[in-house]
């Protein structure tokens, strides 16, 4: 396999695992409400960066693992992840041309869709009680998108692995 065609699988998996750690890290209580969906952000990045390698299926698998990890209904995050991955795959050519702010708007939309799906599927009392704090991760996720984008791009382009 030629060097310039090798996809950094190690980096890809490590970034996913790191995102999972961030997702379930025991943040202090007020901060925990703001904890964005890191896994989804990382998945979006990899779908945009390497759409020929990371597709709906890997997004689905990661979502299923997330479900087990966080004790959700099996398939909840798998569904939202694959839907968002589908949107990103459809629009990745255009999205890559966008400036980061415009990308951020799209990411906001993606996160909102996924959170709305979760809200819609888990008709739980808990979420109803959480009221507006349930939607905070969407905002913070959008806020952290440039950080995720630039750090992951630095990792991906380190020694020009693509």
């Amino acid at each position, binding site marked *: 396999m030629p060097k310039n065609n090798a996809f950094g699988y190690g980096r890809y998996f490590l970034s996913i695992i790191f995102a999972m*750690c961030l997702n379930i*890290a025991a*943040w202090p209580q007020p901060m925990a409400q703001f904890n964005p969906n890191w896994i989804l952000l990382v998945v979006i990045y990899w779908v945009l960066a390497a759409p020929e390698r990371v597709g709906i299926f890997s997004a689905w698998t990661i979502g299923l693992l997330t479900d*087990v990890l966080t*004790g959700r209904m*099996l398939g909840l995050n798998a569904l939202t992840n694959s839907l968002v991955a589908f949107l990103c795959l459809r629009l990745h050519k255009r999205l890559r041309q966008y400036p980061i702010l415009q990308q951020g708007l799209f990411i906001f939309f993606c996160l909102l869709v996924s959170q709305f799906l979760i809200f819609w599927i888990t008709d739980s009392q808990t979420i109803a009680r959480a009221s507006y704090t349930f939607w905070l991760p969407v905002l913070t996720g959008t806020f952290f998108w440039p950080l995720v984008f630039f750090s992951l791009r630095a990792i991906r382009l380190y020694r020009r692995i693509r």
Partner: protein
Amino acid sequence: MASIALLVAERKSSQLDKLRSVLSMITYPIQSITDWPLHHSKETVESIKSLYSLKEENERLSQEQLIYKSQLLKYEALEKENIRLRALLEKSFKLGEQVLVAELLSVNLAPFEHVVVVDKGTRFGVHAQQAVLDAYGVVGQVYRALPLNSEIMLITDPGHAIPVQINRNGLRTIAVGSGRINRLILPYLANNADIKEGDLLISSGLGGIFPQGYPVAVVEKIILQPNKPFAEIYATPKAQLNRSRELLIVWKSEAPIPLETQETDQADENHAEE
């Protein structure tokens, strides 16, 4: 996209526990990794504690143990007396629970749920719906047992309810979680119920999950609502829900302890009196 449709169908059935256990083998290392920094920072702090403070702690602990031992002696006598009295009333008495110490992993699954993860799972015989205690009171129940770890729902989770009774007069009710770590709600007590601030609530043993007689909470505030059928009553959990790292998972002894010789003795005495 067809897989998504499959998922929606599968979600309704409960056949997926096996799949979840298998996948949890993959995700458990991630939880351990997340727990690792905090766990080891605590260990480091302990290892650099001075000899003096360790000695002091040791002394304090041995003193405490002495006190508890003497109390336990009394408790044993009381337990025997209790069994004897219950034998007089011809009632069976469930006693004796087996416990397993499990350590908390410092992970936070979902911000708006009070579910914690401990490092003991079905390989240690843990199963769902076991009661979980700490040194101060009832913590919650095992919500889902996976091979290597298990998820525990705290009593303060909004979706959790525990049958309790007031220790002072035996009034039974249900304590519901509020979603705040330091508050339980008693929504089903009438305005004229005999309850005071400072009353201790103990688990009543009804419902079959929690063993009877463990402290659950202390009544904190009572707001009478003359225009509504029930009063608004808040209680503070006794267990240190956000502080303790070691939890006890309880196995209930299913069969009641036989009332052995006392009963026959009593019967003999009754006959003698006749």
